[in-house]
């Protein structure tokens, strides 16, 4: 608990920024959902035959998990990609269903006599809607807006996966650091924000439905408008402040966040340019996509990953050859691979130190002999990638008791150490390996290709800012595997701040 408050205290400015981003995401997407959803609901209420399909489609959209939705939208031009824009599109889609539904319910719920009175008084369809139907449907619509906004606060935490910022940053950062106080630093305010939004909108709704006096209606709407305005201004300033010339990305695990900081601080220090950090993006493909669309200017990739996951080519085993080949492939598509940082983060097949010692396990071959009694836990990427589990199982004749469990990469270290699984595939440079007394088995058949870490950048950006290329080239060969593991350990096990660790590292290197 104390750690939680210390964290907030030491990250006050960042926290305020993320909170503002979060509120902005919710406010903008909810407003847009109202502007789209209410007319759609009115339209559907006029044509009962279309109302079922419209609600049906909105229903289906609602059931798509948010990460999958971000995935669908990644390749879509204009609204897709990574960043706040794509996140807002997803949040709008989620907000539509409750708003469309309650609009339909509100309008079809208007007393038939009251509607007939309006028509008999010579109202046009538009006047009937404006003077009678919408005002009477308002409390119902307000209930839908409340649901949409509260759902939005929750869904917006997922938006951090595509670099839209918000309180989800801390949740992802905490997950990748396996540090529950960092997770709580984002999760608790997000939950409180949801409660606050719910309470405020419930009050507005109450004003609209029980007190029909126009004065208090006006007060309620004015209060809601004031909150929206404050949020827009706060969020707008935060967004403006975070806009920088160079955008640095990273995937969503500790080492990537540290490397993202390393690249960002190096650029800041050597060029004096402003840098925007989009760390914790949800995976290789999201980072790559962001690089292509220009949402990210540079991130650190691993050569073996680029070869197989980005370019879909069979794995190679010679480090230099892989680097040259990948650099050429990148160059053809407007991206520049810079000199490797100096360490190889290959997959590490890990077991508990206890088991390794008692069973005398040293190599993966050793493990294959006893694996029939074991359960394995792998991340999604490892299970799917051609250079991941399928090839590994074939190369070593590995067979487990049952299908491997699918789990988050960062959680799998804990799952192994606590005995829920017996073998995992982690990163060779993971700080948790020594922190949790895990043992890496030797890849004695040389199955895994090399994974040399190297920054990859948009060629356009480097042409425009040659000083950025100079700064990144100077990083080449500066980070050894031992240093990387130490920094990972400092963040994962000692719960130190990644930015601080990188500052200390750069101070020594210089």
């Amino acid at each position, binding site marked *: 608990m104390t750690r939680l408050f210390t964290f907030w205290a030491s990250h006050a400015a960042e926290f305020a920024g993320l909170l503002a981003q979060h509120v902005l995401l919710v406010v903008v997407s909810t407003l847009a959902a109202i502007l789209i959803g209410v007319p759609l609901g009115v339209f559907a209420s006029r044509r009962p035959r279309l109302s079922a399909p419209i609600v049906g489609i909105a229903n289906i959209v609602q059931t798509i998990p948010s990460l999958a939705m971000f995935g669908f939208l990644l390749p879509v031009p204009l609204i897709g990609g990574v960043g706040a824009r794509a996140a807002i599109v997803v949040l709008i889609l989620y907000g539509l269903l409750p708003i469309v539904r309650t609009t339909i319910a509100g309008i079809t719920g208007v007393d038939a006599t009251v509607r007939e009175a309006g028509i008999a*008084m010579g109202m046009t369809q538009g006047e009937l809607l404006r*003077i009678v139907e919408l005002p009477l449907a308002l409390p119902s619509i307000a209930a839908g807006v409340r649901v949409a906004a509260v759902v939005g606060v929750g869904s917006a935490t997922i938006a951090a996966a595509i670099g839209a910022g918000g309180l989800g940053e801390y949740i992802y950062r905490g997950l990748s650091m396996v540090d529950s106080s960092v997770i709580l630093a984002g999760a608790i305010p997000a939950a409180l924000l949801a409660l606050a939004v719910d309470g405020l909108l419930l009050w507005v709704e109450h004003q609209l439905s029980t007190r029909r006096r126009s004065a208090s209606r006006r007060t309620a709407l004015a209060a809601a408008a004031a909150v929206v305005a404050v949020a827009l201004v706060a969020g707008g300033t935060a967004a403006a402040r975070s806009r920088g010339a160079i955008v640095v990305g990273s995937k969503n695990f500790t080492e990537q966040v540290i490397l993202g900081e390393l690249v960002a601080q190096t650029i800041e220090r050597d060029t004096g340019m402003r840098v925007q950090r989009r760390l914790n993006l949800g995976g290789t493909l999201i980072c790559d996509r962001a690089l292509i669309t220009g949402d990210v200017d540079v991130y650190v990739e691993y050569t073996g990953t680029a070869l197989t996951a980005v370019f879909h080519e069979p794995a190679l085993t010679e480090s230099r050859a892989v680097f040259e080949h990948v650099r050429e492939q990148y160059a053809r598509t407007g991206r520049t691979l810079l000199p490797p940082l100096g360490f190889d983060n290959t997959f590490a097949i890990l077991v508990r130190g206890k088991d390794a010692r008692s069973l005398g396990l040293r190599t993966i071959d050793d493990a294959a002999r006893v694996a029939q009694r074991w359960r394995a836990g792998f991340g999604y990427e490892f299970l799917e990638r051609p250079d991941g589990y399928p090839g590994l199982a074939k190369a070593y004749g590995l067979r487990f008791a049952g299908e491997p469990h699918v789990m988050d990469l960062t959680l799998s270290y804990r799952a192994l150490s606590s005995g829920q699984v017996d073998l995992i595939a982690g990163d060779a440079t993971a700080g948790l390996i020594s922190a949790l007394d895990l043992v890496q088995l030797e890849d004695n058949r040389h199955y895994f290709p090399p994974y040399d870490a190297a920054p990859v950048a948009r060629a356009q950006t480097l042409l425009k800012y040659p000083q950025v290329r100079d700064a990144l080239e100077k990083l080449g060969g500066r980070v050894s595997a031992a240093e990387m593991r130490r920094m990972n350990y400092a963040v994962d096990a000692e719960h130190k701040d990644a930015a601080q660790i990188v500052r200390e590292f750069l101070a020594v290197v210089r």
Partner: protein
Amino acid sequence: MAALEFRDVSFTRPGGTRVLEHFDLRVDDGEVVALVGRSGAGKTTILKLINRLLEPDSGEVLVEGKSTREWDALVLRRRVGYVLQDIGLFPHMNVSGNIAVVPRLERWTASRVDARVGEMLDLIGLDRGSFAARWPDQLSGGQRQRVGVARALAADPPVLLMDEPFGALDPVTRVELHAQFARIQARVRKTVVIVTHDMHEAFAMATRIGVLDGGRLIAYDTPESVRASGDPRVRQLFNA
């Protein structure tokens, strides 16, 4: 020229029930006509044909000498005040807001609307100070009915239609309202069509009474003559 005229009008409900069969009716300016009949006799249909909420299958309905088909429906409806059976006051508007609806649709200036609302409250005998800002659910049934009448008369339409206007009220209130209606009509001199199943209400309010049966008028005369009628179908309504 008659204020309202039905010429050989037939009308069938969407379900196929024939409601009006070669129906004729003529209402002169400033008359108060009560149409009496059992439920299902087509009373409400007649009113809706006048303000073109419905259109006849054959024949024509003339308002001020012009067929309702030739009237712009919106213009026609704003010239015909309509007091609905269930009143249908707008629950999200207070009394003055309800009365002001049609004048506002007609884009009267705010000061003219305010003045008119005051006049209408005086006309229906509700105190401006204590009633203008009340909400429909804070009114008694009789007060609500009166506001319904004020709303229908606010833009000074030449024709007023009333559908079972006082049907849901207790007998004492009903008698009071009949008397008040007579005072109002003496001042505004509208052409009024009332439909009711209550013969006593018809006698209390009307200058002419029509008796509906089988989609036609079986009697259409002064209250005295209708009272003296020997037709058993008319006599039956007295006992209802």
